[in-house]
């Protein structure tokens, strides 16, 4: 277990190291951040001062190693634009993104699992067919387009829900959260729904497929043959078996929700990490770009690790020892 964890950690570190190299080279290929940031009337001397301040006058490898050195000391560089440690810039926006992603995932689970169960248990009912048709639509609708439509309908035409920002926030554990106030919740509703739509379809289809796969299994037939109540057969024997893939995928999808929040945050002006990275790309805030990617790698490593752990906890067939094989 410990060694498994260790090897995963080493793997993750290698990935991050590779990532820093790629990103470092990548960001240095495009554009000139100084040209974007300094005022157009800056003199050559003023310009040079900025170039030196950012350390851009040094050769790339030197910049890279001083960056690596900084990383070892917990310093991922300083944002050109915000004049804050890049990590801090990102961490400030992390709660907003996490809140959005978690809400979206929650919506997807709360809606997706019951619908999927229904569709799986009664595959021929008209309602189930309607759900499945809806899921194809949910799969197909581009997130950004749905976002626009949601704003059009619910904010502009009906005026029910606000279209942008986080609304009133409350501080908890030193971070600001929207979901604790009514105003915040109303701001959260549309972006969370927007982000969840695709996942609802996914969870639903996953659960349905799981049910369809589990129902014909011998152990379900056997559970019925033992005279168990139908409710118990479904909620105890079917559900736990389908939960294993569902939990796995939901966990992994959490990462993709974080990624897709880029789109949603842009449309709904949600002040999270996704919007930050788009802004940073536009102004070539290299330290933030690099730090953001490092952050994402960390988040993904953690998510994958948690998913693996959850998987082992849920499915007794999976042994940690055996996992080393894959």
């Amino acid at each position, binding site marked *: 277990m410990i060694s498994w964890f260790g090897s995963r950690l080493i793997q993750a570190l290698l990935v991050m190291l590779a990532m820093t190299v790629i990103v470092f080279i990548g960001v240095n290929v*495009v*554009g*000139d*951040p*100084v*040209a*974007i*940031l*300094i*005022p*157009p*009337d*800056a*003199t*050559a001397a*003023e*310009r040079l*001062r*900025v170039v030196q*301040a*950012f350390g851009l006058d040094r050769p790339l490898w030197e910049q890279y190693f001083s960056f690596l050195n900084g990383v070892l000391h917990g310093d991922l560089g*300083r944002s*050109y*634009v*915000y*004049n*804050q440690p890049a990590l801090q*810039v990102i961490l*400030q*926006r992390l709660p*907003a993104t996490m809140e959005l992603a978690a809400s979206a995932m929650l919506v997807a689970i709360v809606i997706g699992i019951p619908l999927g169960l229904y569709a799986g248990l009664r595959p021929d009912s008209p309602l189930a067919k309607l759900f499945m048709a809806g899921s194809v639509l949910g799969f197909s609708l581009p997130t950004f387009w749905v976002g*626009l439509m949601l*704003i059009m309908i619910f*904010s*502009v035409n009906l*005026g029910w*829900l*606000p*279209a*942008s*920002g*986080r609304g009133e*926030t409350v501080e908890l554990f030193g971070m*600001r959260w929207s979901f604790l106030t009514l105003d915040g919740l109303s701001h959260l509703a549309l972006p969370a729904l927007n982000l969840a739509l695709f996942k609802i379809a996914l969870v639903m289809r996953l659960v349905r497929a799981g049910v369809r796969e589990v129902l014909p299994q011998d152990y379900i037939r056997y559970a019925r043959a033992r005279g168990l109540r139908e409710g118990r057969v479904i909620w105890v024997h079917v559900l736990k078996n389908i939960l294993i893939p569902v939990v796995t995928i939901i966990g992994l999808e959490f990462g993709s929700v974080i990624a897709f929040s880029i789109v949603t945050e*842009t*449309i*709904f*002006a949600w*002040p999270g990490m996704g*919007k*930050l990275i788009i*802004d940073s*790309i*536009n*102004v*070539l805030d290299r330290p933030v770009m690099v730090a953001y990617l490092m952050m994402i790698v960390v988040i993904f490593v953690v998510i994958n690790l948690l998913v693996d752990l959850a998987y082992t906890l849920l499915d007794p067939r999976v042994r940690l020892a055996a996992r080393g094989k894959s």
Partner: protein
Amino acid sequence: MKRLNRLTRLLMASAISVAAFAPAVSADPLRIAIGGAFTSMDPHFYNATPNHTVAMHIFDRLIDRRPDTSLAPALALSWEAVSDTEWLFHLRDGVTWHDGEPFTADDVAFTYTRARDVPNSPGGFGGFLREVESVEVIDDLTLKITTPVPAPNLPRNLAFVPIISRHVGETATTEDYNAGTAVIGTGPYRFVSYAPSDRVEYARNDDWWGEAQPWDTVTLRMIPSAGARVAALLSGDVDVIDTPPSGDLERLRSDDNLAVYSTPGMRVMYVGLNQTDSAPGVSGPNGEALDTNPLQDPRVRRALSLAINREGLATRLMQGAAVPTGQWLSEGQFSYAPSVEVPPYDVAAAQALLAEAGYPDGFTLPVFGPNDRYPGDAATTQALAQMWARLGLRTSVDSQPWSTYSGITGTGELSVGLLGWGSPTGEAGYLLTNVLHTRDADAGTGIFNTGRYSNPELDALVDTAMATLDDAEREALLIQAVEMVDADTAMIPLFMLINNWATRSTVTIDARRDERTLAIDIHPAQ
């Protein structure tokens, strides 16, 4: 039972009346949304309009700029040039910082040192203080500034620099500003909170020296997406938004609950023309190389200018968010040249000029432009290509994000490109010096001269004007320079962007030329 009931009713009634009157007694909170991204609470960190907007609520300047760009006393009650290179500033008495400390000339001296050199800053304030060679504190309320050369624009430049206090500022870092602890100004609002990339909250400073402010609290939110900003206004989330999309203006105007306020801004959109010996991509009608760069011929430049339907650009493409222009200031501004008219849209004349210059069959011309920098920039670039195609040129369009486009503007590789230039000084000299003056890195001229235009006669005229402290004399010289630029078609001005704000009809706003959205310009509707 009955009595209790009456009592309850009474209590409820009073509660309701309190609730109903509460907002009316002291004025409402004001909620503003701007599109630009503010990045720091440090007033000297980054010279960008959103950052200025954030700072100006809290910090005063020595000299203020009114919405129409004319100057007004602020922390300085008056100022005068005592010699060609020396200025005296007389400060306002009895001003206190938000923490209660008194404001003195020493704070100003400290500010001008600090603003030039904020650690890790991408720069910006150095430009405003380039003319400040030394600051001498005569007494608590008098200040002498020495300039290296005659600097007629000094007061205009100082109007950009927020004044901070020495007692807080000396030890404060950018972090302290972002955390709010160092955000101590003398301005109309006090700092309450700052959520990066989201909002800044202010509360009224009742001790401000200026006119009493109607707003208890002000929330300044950042909503970069124009659609989302409009939606926020429509849904009543905010009271004021800046730069509503031009396509929405008509609808916003026609809504009884909303109002739109406009003023021509200070930014001119123009076409920069490469006038070096060889402009990349400019070739013969069939792509063959040309002996000379056609853009060096003033007739060609004029033809390109005449082929542009500026009225169409302003009314259709920009949907009224722009006014056609032949120069870079608006009527009424210092050094505006009334004689320079908007070039007419005359394709026939343009074709004639082109033939006269020796290009009856046109030539090949790639048209560049940014796509994320100015309102309608990509569309304008396409429209230019469209109109020059009608002139008979073989045009192509290359729209790039500013992050890459800004790279080619500085190197002289740009052949023909859409550019924008703001004149924050509100006079013609700033553009003349930076955009059209012969490029000279040492002298700091022609810094943004992307086309490498060089006209010694114009250079001399500009140099003289910019050393003339007498306003009338200087204005005459500048107007002469503007006329010279037009005659030579050194650049092709297209239109001035109009600054727009949309508000809920409960408030009014004085539209500012400098694009800033300030609570002191916003008033409850009568």
